[in-house]
């Protein structure tokens, strides 16, 4: 029962617009807390970092195209591969998914915003500033150069005396704040800010994925923040956490890093898998096969993901008993992943596939995930891992996993939700060209690396000898990398052209079942004029699926929907069964998130420059801003929730 534009109540819309709209001009631009704006900022910023990281990769591929080339010095190569990894892992892969979730969650969940809109703005600003921070020493040739996992003692002051690794360690702590703040916001939003009736068994899988990843981040990020603080203290304050001479232990770094690192890898893929689980079925014209199984295996993957970190450390001389345990755990984790794969294949198999661009990207994802998954399964075996670790085989594996499970669903997801975000369709023809160029380029670039690795080429070395016999394989990889880059350019061109001249999309161009498609494209700033009420997992497909007699109340200003127009407000529900329990007053535009971020930046730059007055200044700015932020404001104790008639 989707209401059409003619049933909409103009005064209600006007009232909502007045309360929700962001102020015009520079102030509004800096002070907005609208989740849709923040989501799009996240997407654009993360995509810029993808381009930067991609450019770094291309330069490295040029250097590696033939043996003994001198395009890059060894030191420049070290900085490039470190910044490539750091950028892609930290500044692209998670933030891009946060972008989707920020934009889509309230729309999918039937809410008007995230639980903490100002924290949402804060997590974006901190992400942006931390990203810039990580690149601050790049122009002077002192960028982080210890790889994205920055092993000690290589990164100790003795062996790495510049500010390179100070930027890295402080930058990751800075960025970690953004991740944790964002994760907490997702968790509370899921638990409390949903449409009435959207019980946990009706959540889109993407919500499950991001929720699981967020819970993991909350528990994993402190490990790397602590490790990075210890590294910085070792380097600048003379402590001995990782220094053997003072009784320290380099393996402590690896333990802390991978206790974070492995859950993080799953945090980078679970929301992307969720994108596929939600969007792929739309192009198969049927609900996802095995919704419950997929939801459970999402959570199971994450829980198991906390118990496999040592498989990154098989070659460090740990006791065999411990290796066996972590090897077994790493094998077991294949089970929930396989459940997902079989559910996606079954969805395609039993559905009526429509070969639109997003479908191609999602189907391509399934294929790449299987290849990357199998090579991961192989390296779960200790014996094989000892042969393959630190070789190009691992490079091939991690790129199949990360590009396959993250980039392909992301690009497919952009094609899928672009109409919702902009009101315009992306070009199908260009989209298909993009897909095939990216798929072919990707495989040409990365498949040969399996062989390069098996032939013994080590990763992270700036060149190789001609008599290794891997020159031709590397040349193929380089060609593939450039083909892939052409695909990315095609994609950007498609985005640019469709923004200006794409066909109008309408509310629900793909005939999709979830709530975000029940509002206009692009959605109004308040998302829904009346809060939807959900009666099934697929509110817009109820007439067709006929799973029960109950019908959701969905649409813009429909009878019996909650109005909630006494100020900027939305509904809060009970965590499991989504019964309305509270009216939530939402904050308006605010500069506080930006101020807090600036204070934080002063603090971190102060630590980098070892400047006490900057640290103190930043600290004072933090306390004052937080006091203003948290000041209690008077409001009514209770409110009558009006229903629309």
């Amino acid at each position: 029962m989707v209401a059409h534009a003619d049933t909409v109540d103009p005064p209600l819309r006007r009232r909502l617009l007045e309360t929700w709209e962001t102020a015009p001009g520079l102030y509004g631009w800096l002070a907005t807390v609208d989740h849709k704006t923040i989501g799009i900022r996240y997407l654009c910023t993360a995509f810029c970092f993808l381009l930067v990281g991609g450019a770094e990769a291309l330069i490295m591929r040029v250097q590696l195209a033939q043996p003994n080339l001198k395009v890059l010095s060894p030191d420049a190569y070290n900085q490039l591969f470190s910044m490539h990894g750091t950028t892609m892992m930290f500044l692209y892969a998670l933030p891009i998914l946060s972008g989707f979730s920020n934009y889509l969650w309230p729309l999918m969940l039937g809410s008007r915003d995230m639980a903490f809109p100002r924290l949402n703005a804060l997590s974006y600003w901190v992400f942006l500033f931390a990203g810039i921070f990580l690149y601050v020493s790049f122009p002077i040739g002192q960028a982080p150069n210890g790889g994205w996992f920055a092993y000690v003692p290589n990164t100790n002051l003795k062996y790495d005396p510049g500010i390179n690794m100070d930027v890295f360690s402080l930058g990751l702590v800075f960025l970690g704040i953004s991740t944790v703040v964002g994760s907490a916001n997702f968790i509370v939003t899921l638990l409390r800010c949903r449409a009435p009736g959207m019980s946990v068994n009706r959540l889109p899988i993407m919500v499950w994925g991001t929720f699981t990843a967020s819970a993991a981040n909350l528990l994993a990020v402190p490990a790397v923040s602590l490790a990075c603080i210890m590294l910085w203290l070792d380097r600048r304050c003379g402590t001995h956490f990782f220094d053997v001479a003072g009784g320290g232990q380099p393996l402590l770094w690896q333990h802390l890093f991978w206790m974070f690192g492995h859950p993080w890898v799953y945090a980078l893929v679970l929301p992307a898998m969720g994108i596929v689980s939600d969007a792929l079925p739309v192009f198969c014209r049927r609900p996802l096969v095995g919704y419950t199984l997929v939801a459970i295996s999402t959570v199971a993957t994450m829980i198991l993901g906390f118990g496999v970190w040592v498989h990154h450390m098989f070659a460090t001389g740990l006791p065999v008993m411990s290796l066996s345990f972590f090897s077994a755990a790493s094998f077991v984790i294949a089970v929930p992943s396989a459940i997902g794969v079989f559910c996606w294949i079954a969805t395609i198999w039993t559905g009526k596939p429509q070969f639109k661009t997003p479908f191609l990207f999602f189907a391509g994802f399934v294929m790449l995930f299987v290849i990357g998954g199998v090579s991961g399964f192989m390296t779960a075996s200790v014996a094989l891992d000892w042969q393959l670790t630190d070789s190009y085989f691992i490079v091939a594996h991690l790129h199949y996993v990360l590009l396959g499970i993250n980039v392909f669903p992301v690009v497919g997801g952009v094609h899928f939700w672009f109409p919702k975000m902009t009101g315009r369709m992306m070009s199908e023809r260009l989209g298909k060209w993009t897909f095939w160029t990216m798929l072919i380029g990707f495989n040409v670039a990365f498949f040969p690396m399996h062989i390069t690795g098996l032939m013994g080429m080590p990763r992270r070395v700036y060149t190789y000898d001609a008599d290794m016999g891997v020159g031709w394989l590397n040349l193929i990889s380089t060609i593939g990398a450039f083909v892939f880059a052409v695909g990315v350019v095609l994609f950007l061109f498609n985005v640019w052209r469709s923004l200006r001249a794409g066909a109008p999309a309408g509310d629900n161009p793909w005939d999709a079942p979830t709530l975000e498609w029940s509002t206009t494209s692009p959605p109004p700033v308040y998302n829904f004029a009346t809060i939807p009420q959900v009666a099934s997992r697929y509110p817009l497909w109820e007439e067709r699926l006929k799973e029960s007699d109950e019908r959701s109340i969905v649409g813009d200003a429909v009878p019996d929907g909650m109005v909630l127009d006494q100020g900027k407000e939305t509904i809060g529900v009970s965590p499991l069964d989504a019964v309305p329990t509270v009216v939530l007053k939402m904050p308006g535009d605010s500069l506080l998130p930006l101020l807090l971020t600036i204070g934080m930046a002063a603090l971190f730059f102060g630590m980098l420059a070892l400047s006490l007055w900057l640290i103190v200044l930043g600290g004072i700015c933090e306390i004052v801003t937080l006091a203003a932020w948290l000041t209690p404001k008077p409001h009514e104790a209770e409110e009558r929730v009006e229903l629309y008639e």
Partner: protein
Amino acid sequence: MSETAQNEVLPVGGAGPVSTAWWGMACLIATEGILFVYLIFSYAYLGSQQNGPWPPAGPPSLKLAIPNTIILIGSSIVLGWGLHLFRRTRNSRRLATTLFVTVVLGTVFVTIQGFEWAQKPFVFSTNAYSSAFFILTGVHMAHVVVGLVMLIMLLVWTLMGRFNQGHHEHLALGALYWHFVDVVWLAVFTTAYLVPQFK
């Protein structure tokens, strides 16, 4: 959706688990709590990797640590009692007094701890033990200081009469954080002070 009552009256903002702020605080406590798990792991891991004794110079003295622990726990009890009274009597003068006493006890804790640090025969950069000891107790101390700033703000807002109209969500959450900091101290105290006594 028949289960939604018509034109319901609902609380605004809400208190306890009904409010979103409570869940936000729960997330903060979860992530801070796990930070201390990693800190204690690091301390224990470094200890397990030593050839010599851990701590190298023998177990730390309990002479100041035990009274200090009692002071910190006492501050939690005073705060809890103060909030309980305020909920019943709505007397913000009495609330301000208990908040003030809590702040004083917290400050005494910080002072004694600083005094104890100064007495140590080693500094942060002496060896792995000193590094691990100071980062564990130091991160905790930082949390105590943050907690104190929170309590001082609550005291200021109480004196300004901000909590007279029944909004004590801030109080409840500030107290929750303070109790958390105290519970963490018990784990830190056990790890860094008690366990070495049994070697």
